[in-house]
């Protein structure tokens, strides 16, 4: 290990000498040494941040105003990409609608399931850890192609879902081929994978003091009152965190749509990220795709900002303790 001399500290007795100037100089030298050590340690990230994040972002922003197919030089087209997106490209608007619908339905559903099951698992009964593992297992394979391929068959015409429905006397449904149903196969897939928010809820539930419930029960509060007056308010910071994270990831769904439905039928599952991928890496319209990426970035930022803005009304933080 090379030990950088910069990070070594001025010797202890020099500081103790107590002579004003030496003291100040020593403090400065120490601050400088600390700064240097700090930047040496975060150096790798800093290089990556400039080279692999900021610079690409700048290039992407530039490309958004150009027409670029990689082979020939980018041609400046001003706002044309954006104009085309919002005024002419109906598939683009379709992808926006699909994605917003998905986020608005799948994210709340996933969180409701996550909270409900976290509450069921918030007990000391025997075997709970087995259930917790079972509920979480689908989430660890969440993004895999294998699961997406499997999902395609579960919802296939001959698949399991239709087989179960047949027992109930419901006729076969072409889940993946019917424009009314296709997106629901992806929403179900999303809801099935509620494991991460569930574990976060569970950790939050464990923080709520049992005494609160006991006191409320003595005061005659029923189960519903306890849920709405104690659990939900005290859990609201966790809920907020989950909501933000799930919304952000919801906007970027790609693999599932790519494999399970491929955007079809009739573009009813043409997710934003999927359409962007096709424009960029199948049609090589890098300018147009960059413009799309920036709109996505702004949408995510806006959405997060709105969530943060409104959070003051429903997120309760306990009196902060100094960290």
């Amino acid at each position, binding site marked *: 290990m090379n030990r950088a001399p910069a*990070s070594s500290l001025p010797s202890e007795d020099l500081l103790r000498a107590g002579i004003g100037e030496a003291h100040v100089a020593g403090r400065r030298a120490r601050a400088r040494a600390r700064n240097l050590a700090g930047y040496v*340690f*975060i150096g790798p990230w800093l290089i990556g941040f400039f080279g692999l994040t900021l610079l*690409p972002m700048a*290039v*992407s922003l530039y490309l958004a105003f150009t027409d670029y197919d990689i082979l020939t030089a980018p041609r400046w087209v001003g706002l044309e990409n954006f104009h085309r997106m919002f005024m002419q490209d109906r598939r683009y608007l379709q992808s926006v609608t699909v994605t917003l619908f998905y986020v608005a339905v799948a994210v709340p559903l996933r969180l409701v399931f996550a909270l409900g099951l976290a509450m069921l698992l918030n007990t000391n009964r025997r075997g709970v850890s*087995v259930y917790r593992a079972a509920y979480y297992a689908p989430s660890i394979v969440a993004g895999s192609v*294998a699961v997406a391929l499997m999902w395609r068959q579960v919802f296939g015409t001959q698949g399991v879902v239709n087989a179960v429905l047949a027992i109930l006397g419901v006729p076969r449904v072409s889940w993946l081929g019917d424009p009314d149903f296709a997106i629901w196969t992806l929403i179900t897939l999303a809801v099935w994978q509620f494991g991460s928010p569930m574990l976060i809820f569970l950790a939050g539930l464990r923080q709520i003091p049992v005494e609160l419930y006991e006191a409320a029960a003595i005061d005659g509060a029923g189960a519903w009152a306890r849920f709405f007056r104690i659990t939900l308010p005290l859990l609201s910071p966790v809920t907020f965190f989950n909501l933000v994270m799930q919304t952000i990831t919801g906007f970027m769904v790609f693999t599932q749509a790519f494999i399970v439905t491929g955007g079809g039928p009739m573009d009813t599952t043409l997710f934003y990220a999927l359409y962007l991928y096709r424009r960029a890496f199948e049609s090589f319209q890098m300018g147009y795709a960059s413009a799309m990426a920036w709109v996505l970035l702004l949408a995510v930022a806006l959405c997060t900002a709105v969530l943060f803005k409104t959070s003051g009304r429903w997120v309760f933080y306990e009196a902060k303790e100094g960290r």
Partner: protein
Amino acid sequence: MSTQALDGTRSPTRSTRRRRELGRTLVYHLGVGAVGFVMLYPILWLFASSFKGPSEVWADVMSLVPRHFTPQNYVTGWAGFGGITFATFYKNSLIYAGVGTVAAVMSSAVVAYGFARIRFAGRGFWFTCMLLTLMLPVQVIIIPQYVFFTKLGLVNTFYPLLLPRFFGMAFFIFMIMQFIRGIPRELDEAAEIDGCSQFGIFFRIILPLIRPALITATIFSFYWTWEDFLTPLVYLNEPKLYTISVALRSFADASGATDWGAIFAMSALSLVPVFVVFVVFQRYLVQGISTTGMKG
């Protein structure tokens, strides 16, 4: 739950109370167990179907026990497509997940120490920048990165996949930082007084203590690279370079709707490492998610 004991209005005799408690436990396990079964069913179904013969897969679609157990699907599936077997795809995935994970975890640990323990000028600003990158859609940077790597002639190599992982990844930096914050500062201070440099403190004191966080980060990194689809899809266009995720997709397209048994077999096989890691390291996973709230 914890409040149930207080619910009883009258005081029933001990035996009826016990019987009621037993009934409640039974209802609980039936209900929660049933949901658990539904949750696991698709995965079990995938594994069961991978051992069914071609006539059985769709004829008896719901069953979880193959009537005629056969490993044939695995044999045909392993042969792959275009003359490339799944051995190649596994090798590629191992390179990506292995090198990528070691690089990401080690660099993230170094950066996390810098952010968590050294009070340097500009720390708050850079930390905020790092948190913001967590929200950044990958689409914004993958296009220019693709252009760079194309110009450098590095498409169809592993460099575009591996290189970014050497510069620390925000998720892991944040997670390891949270863990370092839990270590008493007195330890570093004592070492500092003893003349230990920042590097010494990091390598001799912090690194051994954050082992659990490193394991958690390693597991997540392994999962995310193993299952990553977009990056290999963009950068690896030659079948002999395919990772498993891209190979599975091509395999499913190539064999069309004809040989689902083989597709199931290879899909199931690709999940085996994931589940093995899950079973062995479950404790670390749960802790990692609960303490930092990872994505999922």
